[in-house]
């Protein structure tokens, strides 16, 4: 039976609780284990009163959201002038935040799709939350391009539709590509997430009806579409899940590549370089995993999910952070080398200016947080210390924000014409809106944690050793 266990255990995760489950083939044992998973996950949503810490965090998040709502109100009623943007630095915090948020979203897709395709079964403990994170991050991201147009209520002109003026969107513009890429991404993420939720919502439905909570059962029943776990349905469901994963993988690459095209198709020194697409994708995964850990470490602690989100899952994520951090570092180095190698004086200046110009502090914040800080993850002791990992991940989040700021603001502030050079400083509305999106993100995430299955129960059960209980050769 020990070999049998190995076949279902992920290549990447050696179970640390192998001794605890005893003989999984014994009568009732497997069912007991499955029941335990259901209980461990469902209690969070079924608890009659929310956790006190949850309430406190939710309160803070709502307050932060309100700050953002106020900033949007001022922005919409006054105009873009309330931001620190200028004719020279025409993109600043707005697009920095957009790229930052959308990058964070990518880790969710990566976990749900790429790790699924590469059979990293440890993903099952975090994929649901990571997918939720994707959706909320994309919602926050979408706000910025919308608002930075100045008149967000006219944004529907970006959707091609016949009109009296005979106008069409300009599809050769990378900004239009963005519209398509981000909406496709948001749609796909929501559908993928919902599809994964259906079997678990059915679990909630059945638990509610077993306890006689008919209204909740009816609500969960409608949203779970009448799922009944039939093998013939599971068959199509699994194919569809695999194919959605297969479609999401190139999609996630394309989305951040298209975001990088916004910059790289221009001729601005510091923006126009061919490594941007894969480099942005690596950076997105990097920041996204940092955010997953930032969210999941406290959640794991508060909701007592340590036996589902295991230490080796944290190890794996720290290693991915390390790997993607190195990729981003390699891209920084390549850019610098080619800036010299190209012989293009503007390109060379742009990079020297980044490191030693007026924005030097943001450049070194970026290098420090993205290249140096992740080096701590080499050490097992660090990876085993959740508090330290949490702090390091916050630094990575900061570093990745600075990366986008460095690319956007420093390049614009020192473009071809010295007469246009300027400096950029944010206003309180820039800061407030950013804070507001953080609030919105956490509000949505906390609501998700309260009312939906935060861990993909059916998937966790499917990769447990007990899933193979009772098999004979």
């Amino acid at each position, binding site marked *: 039976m020990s070999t049998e266990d190995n076949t279902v255990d992920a290549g990447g995760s050696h179970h640390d609780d192998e001794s605890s489950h005893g003989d999984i083939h014994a009568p009732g044992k497997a*069912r007991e284990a499955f029941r335990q998973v259901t209980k461990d996950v469902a209690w969070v949503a079924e608890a009659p009163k929310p956790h006190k810490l949850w309430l406190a965090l939710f309160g803070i998040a709502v307050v932060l959201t309100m700050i953002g709502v106020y900033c949007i109100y001022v922005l919409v009623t006054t105009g873009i002038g309330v931001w620190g943007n200028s004719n020279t630095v025409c993109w600043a915090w707005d697009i920095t935040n957009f790229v930052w948020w959308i990058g964070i979203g990518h880790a969710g897709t990566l976990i749900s799709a790429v790790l699924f395709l590469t059979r990293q079964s440890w993903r099952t403990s975090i994929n649901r939350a990571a997918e939720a994170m994707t959706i909320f991050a994309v919602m926050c991201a979408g706000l910025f391009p919308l608002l930075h147009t100045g008149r967000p209520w006219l944004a529907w002109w970006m959707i091609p539709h016949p009109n009296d003026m005979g106008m069409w969107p300009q599809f050769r513009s990378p900004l239009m*590509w963005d519209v398509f890429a981000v909406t496709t991404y948001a749609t796909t993420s929501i559908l993928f997430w919902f*599809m994964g939720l259906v079997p678990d919502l059915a679990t909630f439905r059945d638990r509610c009806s077993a306890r006689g909570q008919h209204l909740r059962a009816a609500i969960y029943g409608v949203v779970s579409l*009448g799922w*009944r*776990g039939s093998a013939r349905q599971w068959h199509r469901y699994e194919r*569809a899940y695999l194919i959605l994963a297969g479609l999401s993988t190139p999609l996630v690459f*394309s989305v951040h590549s298209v975001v990088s095209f916004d910059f790289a198709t221009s001729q601005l020194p510091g923006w126009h370089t061919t490594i941007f697409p894969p480099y942005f994708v690596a950076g997105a995964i990097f920041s996204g995993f940092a955010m997953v850990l930032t969210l999941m470490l406290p959640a794991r602690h508060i909701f007592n999910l340590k036996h589902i989100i295991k230490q080796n899952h944290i190890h794996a994520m720290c290693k991915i952070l390390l790997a993607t951090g190195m990729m981003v570092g390699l891209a920084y180095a390549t850019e610098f080398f080619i800036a010299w190698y190209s012989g293009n004086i503007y390109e060379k200046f742009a990079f020297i200016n980044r490191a030693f110009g007026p924005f030097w502090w943001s450049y070194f914040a970026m290098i420090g947080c993205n290249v140096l800080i992740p080096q701590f993850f080499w050490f097992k002791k660090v990876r085993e210390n959740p508090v330290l990992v949490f702090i390091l991940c916050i630094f990575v989040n900061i570093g990745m924000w600075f990366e986008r700021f460095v690319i956007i603001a420093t390049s614009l502030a020192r473009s071809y014409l010295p007469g246009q050079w300027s400096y950029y400083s944010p206003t309180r509305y820039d800061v407030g809106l950013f804070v507001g999106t953080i609030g919105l993100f956490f509000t949505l995430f906390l609501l998700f944690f309260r009312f939906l299955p935060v861990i993909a129960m059916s998937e966790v059960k499917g990769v447990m050793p007990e899933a*193979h209980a009772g098999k004979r050769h």
Partner: protein
Amino acid sequence: MSNADKHDHHDHDADEPQALPADGDLHGLLAEYDTPGELVEAARKVRDAGFTEFDCYSPFPVHGIDEAMGIKRTILPVLIFGGGFTGLILGLLLQWWTNAFNWPWNISGKPTWSIPANIPIGFETTILLSVFTTFFGMWTLNKLPQVWHPLFRNERFNRVTDDGFFLGIEAKDRRFDAETTTKLLSDAGAIGIDKIHLDPDPAKKVMPKWIFAVIAATTALALIPFAIAAKARNSKSSEPHIHIFADMDFQPKYKSDVAMDEFADSRANRGNIEGTVSRNPASLKADEAFYYGLEDDPTPAPEGAPVATGPAKRWITGFPKAVDADQRLMDRGKQRFEIYCTPCHGYDGRGAGTVPNRVAQGGGLWQAQNLVDPGKKLITIPNGQLFNTISNGAATMPGYAGQIPHRDRWAIVLYVRALQRAQNASLDDVPADQKGSIR
């Protein structure tokens, strides 16, 4: 095997005490198994016994059950390929039709039909339609959503999404027989077997009516905006637009000559602020000869002169004092003339420029003025009037005051005079010592 704990279930399995008052027809049998492995084995046995109308139910996809039940691979991937291909074609077609065909528009010199720039959106539409096909195709093939099903009437079945592993055989299978089938399931190691009955109320066997109502209501509500739009497009109204956002339609500003209470004189117009520099032509462009080609005239002013008040004016015939009519001015005039005037009037001034030529080729009737035709008044009009024509235009000719500075306009006047002279020259105009070279 786990038949040990079979009895405690079997006691009340004998005749399932349904919570509902009465049961309808028998839908089928539902057997529960202890482990996924036993479910797979049972499924194999049921299939080997020749059943086709049966299904397994489990909280997660059980490994190997497809093969044990003999489930055929779904055609979903083929549908998705079709969906993705359609997405690609539609995406590219959309971009071609809008940007290259219906509204071709030059953007930074890129071809209107720019395939490299069209690939990202083509890719996204491919993915989008593939995803739609996957998602909706999967639910459609699975015949979901279906929130009503006889199995949901069974209490035990509540655990199918938790820890239950079930095998259901439907009564409509031609091999179905309540007793032998029960035995088959029980021999396969079932820890509990229930009879599943349809709801006695025939209305509850199909989709509940309230779902119809919700769908109908939602559809009707969704159509309202379209109905409003359709009505608005097909009717006339004297009401102003509904301005949800004012944009620039209503701006907080005062137009000229309106009342304004803030000032003592209640006028929005304010007088000159102290230190304002006058832009009155009389003071800034005092040299009328240079700027307008005019001089004081005791006789009545010519028609069309720009200065309507003050003393009478007439066109000057010579050149203003500020301009030296020398060889430098002539050279300058030639150069400017060839830049600004030749497209219509031609190099020789006869009106055979590229523009009229092109008009003539296209069958048009418009012609440019012949500047040097001796029969026309252009030869005789004063220099000042010629200058004025260059500045303000005449007939179809636009004014060039915006493009050509004053001094250059005088240079052109000089050059036009030279052209008129040269094109209408007689042999007498040739210097005596060069007459021999003319043939």
